[in-house]
């Protein structure tokens, strides 16, 4: 019998073009997603080397990081942003790359549009010059973020030199409690294994709690893999995956789809595989999570208090204190009841239709807290369209909220959507780093439901107090 293999091994091994002795593997890349911020220097590199883009049909572009989230029909006001977006348009035209730019019905955050267009499929290798490329692993593909030199490598050769990472399996068993979402699940995992606990590993998420998640929720989990340092995270494809992929724009159709499914069904990890590292968590232990510090590993259950310095490992105390100083928070104090000025619902972590539904379901029949600024940014034009079709925009409107236009927005504040200095923001995004949402901004990472509760109350709240 053949050696049992992991899901990761099966996909990896099928993509090895060549092995360099005492060096990395040459890994074939099926799909390359590009955006305006990390591609211009790569296109430039190709031109300097006088070589063409090798496989333009396996490359897809969108404009997301820099784009405004209001009045997208008007020219971008900020000159440098406009130039970057224009450069992308020009480069895609010159090299024959499909571009879903501003104004296109498929435009959106790169990690939202890939799956919704059926570009993301099980068993593929996918890369993008963006660390949250790990999102696509939810389909059982190997997907990871790369730097611009590697973007250029893939453009030039459709391959990457990669070392095979170590394997880690994180199993979450049991049922998530009411009010607890995929975002809470992944923030919980990161709080347990730390912001660097996954470095050097590629993660497979498994267990009944993971299998019971929708595709959108699985994407949220895989998206945050990089926040524990892992290059990527994957979930074995199953009927939930196949049902999601079926009939999407670029998915195989008819008989091709059936054939693809029978290949995808062989991908899950074989019995008897030994992972380099294993963690198992109980879903029942997870409560709605919120971060208090300046890395995503600094998370607590919303009913808990910020740890005391004495509880932190001695070597980490300086960084811990630095975080609390930045956040202007005190050790040992609860976060519940903390007043906030901003709420951001969006990003490649939580801007899909289910996230908007969750937010809308909570705020329906309630009113936004006075004085709180709330930015709700759908992940793509298609998500925006669906939200309107489902009437979510009207629910939001009657509760005092507006739906903006798609983009990365206040997740990294490259466009105008910046949280002002000193302000607190409950954010459904992925990073609470110093200044991430704008210079001096202070971020609390949480789920769309916890964000909704904060938007209604004006302070950090336990969403479980409001649900039956």
């Amino acid at each position, binding site marked *: 019998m053949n050696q049992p293999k992991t899901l990761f091994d099966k996909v990896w091994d*099928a993509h090895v*073009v*060549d092995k*360099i002795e*005492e*060096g*990395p593997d*040459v890994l*074939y890349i099926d799909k390359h997603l590009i955006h305006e*911020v*990390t591609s*211009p*220097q790569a296109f430039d*590199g190709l031109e300097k*080397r006088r070589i063409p883009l090798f496989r333009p049909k396996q490359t897809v572009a969108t404009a997301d*990081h*820099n784009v405004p989230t209001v009045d997208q029909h008007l020219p971008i006001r900020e000159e*440098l942003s406009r*130039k*970057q977006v224009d*450069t992308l348009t020009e480069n895609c035209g010159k090299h024959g790359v499909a571009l879903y730019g501003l104004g296109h019905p498929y435009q959106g955050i790169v990690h939202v549009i890939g799956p919704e267009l059926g570009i993301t499929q099980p068993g593929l290798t996918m890369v993008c*010059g*963006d*660390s949250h490329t790990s999102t696509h692993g939810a389909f059982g593909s190997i997907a990871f*973020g*790369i*730097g*611009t*030199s*590697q973007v250029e*490598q893939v453009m*030039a*050769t*459709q391959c990457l*030199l990669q*070392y095979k990472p170590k394997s880690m399996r994180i199993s979450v068993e049991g049922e998530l409690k009411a009010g607890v979402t995929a975002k809470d699940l992944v923030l919980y995992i990161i709080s347990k294994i730390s*912001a*660097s606990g996954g*470095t*050097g590993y590629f993660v497979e998420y498994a267990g009944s709690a993971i299998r019971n998640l929708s595709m959108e929720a699985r994407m949220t989990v895989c998206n945050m893999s990089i926040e524990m*340092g892992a*290059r990527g995270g994957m979930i074995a494809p199953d009927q939930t995956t196949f049902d999601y992929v079926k009939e999407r724009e670029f998915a195989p159709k008819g008989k091709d789809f059936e054939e693809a499914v029978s290949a995808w069904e062989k991908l899950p990890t074989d019995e008897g595989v030994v992972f380099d590292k294993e963690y198992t968590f109980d879903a029942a232990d997870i409560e709605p999570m919120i971060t208090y510090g*300046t*890395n995503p590993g600094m998370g607590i259950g919303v009913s808990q208090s910020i740890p005391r310095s004495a509880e932190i490992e001695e*070597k*980490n105390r*300086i*960084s811990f204190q*630095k975080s609390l100083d930045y956040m202007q928070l005190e050790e040992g104090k609860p976060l519940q009841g903390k007043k906030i000025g901003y709420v951001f619902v969006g990003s490649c972590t939580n801007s899909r239709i289910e996230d908007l539904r969750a937010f809308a379901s909570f705020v329906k029949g309630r009113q936004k807290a006075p004085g709180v600024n709330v930015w709700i940014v759908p992940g793509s034009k298609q998500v925006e369209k669906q939200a309107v079709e489902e009437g979510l925009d009207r629910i939001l409107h009657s509760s005092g909220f507006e739906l903006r236009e798609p983009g990365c927005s206040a997740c*990294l*504040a*490259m466009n105008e959507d910046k949280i002002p*200095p000193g302000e607190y923001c409950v954010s459904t995004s992925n*990073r609470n*780093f*110093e*200044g*991430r949402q704008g*210079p*001096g901004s202070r971020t609390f990472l949480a789920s769309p439901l916890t964000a909704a509760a904060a938007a209604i109350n004006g302070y950090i709240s336990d969403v479980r107090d409001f649900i039956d």
Partner: protein
Amino acid sequence: MEKFTRVQSKPAVLPIENIDTDQIIPARFLKATTREGFGENLFRDWRFSASGQPDPDFTLNQPGQACRTVLVAGRNFGCGSSREHAAWALYDYGFRVVVSSFFADIFKGNALNNGLLPVTVSEDFLAVLLENPDKEVVVDLEEQYVELAGTGQREYFEINAYKKTCMLNGYDDIDYILSIKKKIIAFEEKRKKIFV
């Protein structure tokens, strides 16, 4: 890419853990379409106040810090965003080596692709380096060691043989992969047969 063999310099030290790439180069400075000039905004929000004044307390702004080519920083350096601009900013500012006890994966790869050497040392040796910002540090890639000059305190570091050759010779990965293009095309043909 520039060749790298050996560097000797007093280090700039940042005894902070989890320095993420948003601190190294904030997103709002990623709007350039070329690789040059990012050094100007390296550690922008730590080096400068909101009004643009240099913060005299920040290490890199202190006297005698200019021209230091080795940066020594706390564990999990370079976590977060994949932006290669972080490696470009460090290089453009003048750093050639970053020493830490642990690097985030993507940053490490980006650094190696740009002639910036990431050197992983033990927690203990990192502590020694952090405590001695005024002693010169030698980083030798050929022999794979870091040494606190004049003290005999030395630690060997690991680097993959392929990457070491690239750094020593200034080669990049693209040159290599382009040289095996025939194999890539053959691989594509073979896969087509499997999937049809």
